[in-house]
């Protein structure tokens, strides 16, 4: 009987540890943009509603990207993006789940730009892909500025492009990530 009590206590302690919020930084208005250059027209969109959480202790890093919040200059392009390519009704979010592998290099007490390596799984259009890229984390007052650039192709995420418009759409798409993290306090975002 006693042993069970002790076990429960240990389990609770572990849970409490997991739920502790300190060391966490977050943003709900992160920016992700993409750009692709093609012969007929450049395609560019910006999303200012990205939610991201970074745990400085473990290096854990996640992003949740509401697909419909990508703003295009042409409304028809935006409709086509949501309806025909990423199918936002079926797959409303893109996400990233991973780690900053060298998080111990980042010293909160020293304002500087730190190079970081990011590894994890990117999910777009319901398809997963392992991503291994670099970025920077800048310590600036109470904020942490996270930046990264990398490229993907639509094919990697099962996004098909009809032959008729294949030349209008670039083979690779450059993604820019730009986050301003603030310390996370409290229990929910």
């Amino acid at each position, binding site marked *: 009987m006693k042993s069970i009590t002790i076990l429960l206590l240990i389990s609770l302690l572990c849970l409490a540890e*997991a739920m502790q919020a300190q060391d966490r930084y977050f943003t709900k208005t992160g920016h992700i943009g993409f750009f692709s250059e093609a012969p007929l027209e450049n395609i560019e969109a910006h999303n200012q509603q990205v939610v991201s959480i970074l745990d400085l202790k473990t290096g854990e890093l996640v992003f949740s990207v509401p697909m419909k919040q990508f703003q295009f200059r042409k409304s028809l392009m935006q409709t086509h993006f949501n309806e025909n390519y990423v199918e936002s009704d079926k797959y409303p979010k893109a996400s990233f789940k991973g780690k900053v592998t060298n998080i111990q290099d980042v010293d909160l007490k020293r304002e500087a730009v730190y190079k970081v390596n990011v590894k994890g799984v990117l999910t777009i259009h319901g398809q997963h892909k392992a991503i291994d890229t670099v970025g920077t984390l800048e310590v600036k007052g109470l904020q942490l500025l996270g930046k990264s650039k990398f490229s993907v192709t639509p094919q990697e995420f099962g996004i098909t492009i009809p032959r008729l418009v294949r030349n209008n759409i670039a083979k690779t798409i450059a993604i820019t990530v730009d986050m301003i993290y603030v310390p996370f306090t409290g229990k929910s975002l």
Partner: protein
Amino acid sequence: MIKNYLLIVLFNLLAIAARGQDELLKMAEAADSTFTGKVSGTFKATRLVNGHSVETNGNGSLLFLISHRFGTLNSGAYEFFGLDQATIRLGLEYGITDNLNIGAGRSSLEKTYDGFLKYKLLQQQTGQGLAMPVTLTLFTSAAIRSLRWPPEETSFDFKHRLTYTHQLLFARKFTERFSLQLSPTLVHRNLVETSSDENNVYAIGTSGRFKLTKRTSFNAEYYYLLSEATRNNFRNALSLGFDIETGGHVFQLIFTNAQGMVEKFFIPQNTGYWSDGDIYFGFNISRTFDLKGAEKSQ
């Protein structure tokens, strides 16, 4: 016993490590704005089949629309089942803002010019609590019949050439595939042919689309005449369409018992019966041009 303790502690620790990312992602996903926002793409084109849909052209987009109807299928082999005859409407529509559109067109039928204004007043939204359930677009148009009066008619003025149409277009995208539109309509004719014809004709349109694939959809549209005298002398318009979208183009293949392509024709003065084979085959082809061009880029 101690071994067991250690195992369980270890298990708990491992579980935390694995749970960390998932738990963080869950938190992030719960906080994002996925479930609030505008519902877009209720229909593929600004026309369902003959009638206007709630869709408007975006700010700075110019739409060139070619609409075309052959003769009736029952006209027989001599007329190549209608393909020897054709009526056409050429039209332009422009998005002054994302919600306000202006348009003009010229139909070969009765040499008719038409102009319209379209304003998207409400946009369907998704979200918790009170979210706008429908999209509402206001539509108003004037059509001018420019066909010369017969020589013996001398008492007609310009005003007698005019017909006005006013519509409230309510639509809801129920699922990604299925959208429905209701269109209460008033057609006002300044001049009618006989004294039994009504100047004001009320009708209600019901239309829907079912998306077959990402780029194709099946559309149906039915305009029911509410004005009894008109309903007794003319037919309700039933139109079926198949949309194919390729980038900036939308092709619509159409079967309908209405010959005209503006409201004054296809709502109050239809004579064709589907059951008799008075079916016009035709198409709408639209092409969007972006007039605001590359002037603004972030």
